[in-house]
């Protein structure tokens, strides 16, 4: 995973975000709207819970036999004219992609939004090799033009409002290609038109594209990309060479399995019956689409996550972002506080597992939660996020066995003062805000059956949510002064 050196631990970064009133207002507006719409879209399907159970079971079957399915996938993709590469970590994936682009002789690539390529820092790696990567999702374009980092899985520019976007387009588009039209206003339709014109020029001349994928079907070798804007179709169809970088956990066994996920994903993520465009392709097709197709299968901490019997369920995630939109902590803290491409509840359990408990950031993430259980309720693949949070909290507090880059290691308990400084601050931060807690409690009332179990022994103090507010008052005031109190 991309190392973000000097990344502050969760409470510090969260404190910074909460001071940004606009970010908070945008996020609250966004998550509130998406929550309502999602609930309506889900209510249309009477069999939602059965779809959800099937989705979880299919992912579990895949994960329990991942070696089998990866080999099958490799065989099918190869038989259909694609080339499969294996990347153990970010560095290797970047090296493979850079080499493939270099081999085409091209100096630029167009990109479809992909969490995996963000995770490995591909754009930066390509830039170091003198290759320019153009992001083509509207939101990613905004983020890239503004030299920013995304704050939401699905709406990465949710922290920008239309006036800011217009200014970014006016000032920055010219540096990257076709400048913004003269007199550009701030109506969303005008801004979308500006993006269309700016990017079309790049699509029509692009020779190489880089994508991720939402699903890979082992039985057929088919890859699936779910999107809205059409930039995905452009990238998957027009260039001569397509390179898809995909986490090994995106595999599903059969073609039929797609019927589950193609019903769950659009309703969970954009609250639509179906997203505007879904592309499915198997290898290459004579005369239609790219002539060269490369699939880079990415590990980068996934097998370490797989080794943890409680934590491995995080690999079921289909990146719908429903858990972000119901999370009271995310709503207050904003995406950047999570210090990785994966924000919100899923980030709080995925980042510490993919990277290991490498720094105070990873150690603090499992504590950035009220354990209200709303994330589990909405998760279309039924990941018990509170259970994994508790499990990781215990690991931070008590240490224990974990796998790091394929090797079993014993993690030492975090030092006491580290716990108090970073970890308790995160928990106190989550619990001290009346609004956060109130909504947490309201949701908790509806999710009683999910109430986290206590962990025995010394870990208990760190894992029982009701006991978490017992932070020593001085340290809390210190924290208050350092973050919210001192900021204004």
């Amino acid at each position, binding site marked *: 995973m991309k190392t973000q050196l000097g990344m502050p631990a969760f409470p510090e970064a969260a404190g910074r975000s909460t001071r940004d009133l606009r970010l908070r207002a945008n996020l609250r507006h966004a998550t509130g*709207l998406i929550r309502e719409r999602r609930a309506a879209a889900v209510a249309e399907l009477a069999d939602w819970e059965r779809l959800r159970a099937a989705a979880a079971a299919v992912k579990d079957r895949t994960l329990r*036999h991942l070696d089998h399915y990866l080999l099958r996938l490799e065989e099918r993709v190869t038989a259909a004219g694609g080339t499969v590469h294996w990347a*153990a970590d970010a560095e290797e994936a970047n090296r493979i992609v850079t080499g493939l682009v270099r081999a085409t002789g091209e100096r630029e690539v167009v990109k479809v939004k992909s969490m995996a390529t963000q995770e490995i820092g591909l754009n930066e790696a390509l830039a170091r090799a003198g290759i320019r990567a153009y992001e083509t999702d509207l939101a990613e374009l905004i983020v890239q033009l503004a030299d920013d980092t995304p704050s939401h899985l699905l709406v990465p520019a949710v922290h920008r409002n239309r006036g800011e976007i217009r200014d970014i387009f006016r000032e920055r588009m010219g540096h990257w290609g076709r400048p913004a039209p003269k007199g550009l206003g701030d109506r969303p339709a005008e801004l979308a038109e500006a993006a269309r014109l700016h990017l079309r020029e790049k699509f029509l001349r692009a020779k190489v594209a880089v994508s991720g994928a939402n699903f890979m079907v082992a039985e*057929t070798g088919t890859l699936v990309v779910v999107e809205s804007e059409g930039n995905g179709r452009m990238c998957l169809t027009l260039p001569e060479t397509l390179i898809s970088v995909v986490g090994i956990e995106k595999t599903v066994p059969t*073609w039929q399995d797609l019927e589950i996920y*193609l019903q769950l994903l659009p309703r969970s993520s954009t609250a639509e019956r179906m997203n505007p*465009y879904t592309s499915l392709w198997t290898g290459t097709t004579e005369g239609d689409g790219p002539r060269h197709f490369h699939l880079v299968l990415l590990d980068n901490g996934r097998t370490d996550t797989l080794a943890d019997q409680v934590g491995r369920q995080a690999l079921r995630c289909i990146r719908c972002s429903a858990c972000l939109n119901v999370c009271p902590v995310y709503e207050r803290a904003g995406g950047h506080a999570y210090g990785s491409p994966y924000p919100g509840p899923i980030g709080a359990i995925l980042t510490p597992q993919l990277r290991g408990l490498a720094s105070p950031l990873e150690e603090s993430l499992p504590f950035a939660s009220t354990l209200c259980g709303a994330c589990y309720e909405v998760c279309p693949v039924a990941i018990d996020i509170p259970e994994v949070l508790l499990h990781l909290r215990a690991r931070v507090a008590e240490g224990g066995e974990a796998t790091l880059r394929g090797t079993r290691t014993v993690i030492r308990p975090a030092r006491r003062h580290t716990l108090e400084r970073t970890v308790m601050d995160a928990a106190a931060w989550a619990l001290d805000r009346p609004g956060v807690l109130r909504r947490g409690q309201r949701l908790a009332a509806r999710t009683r059956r999910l109430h986290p179990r206590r962990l025995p022994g010394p870990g208990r103090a760190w894992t029982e949510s009701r006991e978490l507010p017992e932070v020593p008052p001085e340290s809390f005031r210190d924290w208050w002064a350092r973050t919210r109190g001192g900021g204004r």
Partner: protein
Amino acid sequence: MNGYGSRERILARVRRALADVPAHERPADHPVPRDYAAVHGTRTPEETVELLAANLADYRARVHRTDTAGLPALLAGLLARRGARRVVVPAGLPPQWLSRAVVEPVTDSPALTHRDLDAMDSVVTGCALAIAETGTVVLDAGPDQGRRRITLIPDHHLCVVRLPDQVVDSVPQALRRLDPLRPLTWISGPSATSDIELDRVEGVHGPRTLEVLLVNP
């Protein structure tokens, strides 16, 4: 350094990570309950078509209904209203469909560049099938649909759905009929984005106007 080494390394890591899975367990041994619905609700064929039309319209596709005899006049009228002159068509489009239209049809061929396609006003195609519950048309690059790029670059797409055969109720039914080895494009309304303050805006990169023609025999 080389990819083959990483292949073995990753597979070995996967196997080590799964030490808790009993050696005798086969993939199919892990149960998957498939008691979810194959179709949501019960409808007559006509109700299914109405649902398709309603869901297409809900995502701002323009929906028109006619029969085979009326199709050429409807297409001619829609293209004229749009002011379309150059219209790209797949090689296998039934010739009578555009028999009434006063346009210059350009048959898709590998010789057409992306820039040529960018200069087209409209594209007319058939489809592989349409899904009523989601308001989706699916293209599979068949002879009356052509290469994927021709329905992507022009700004105006007219898509003909033949009733009742090409309409299915649900996503599970659709997947059963589709061929995974063909490149598939599922289209549910014109391209859209909600990236700016969550306002849905039609049309970023794909055709900004999608017209779906539901055609009775």
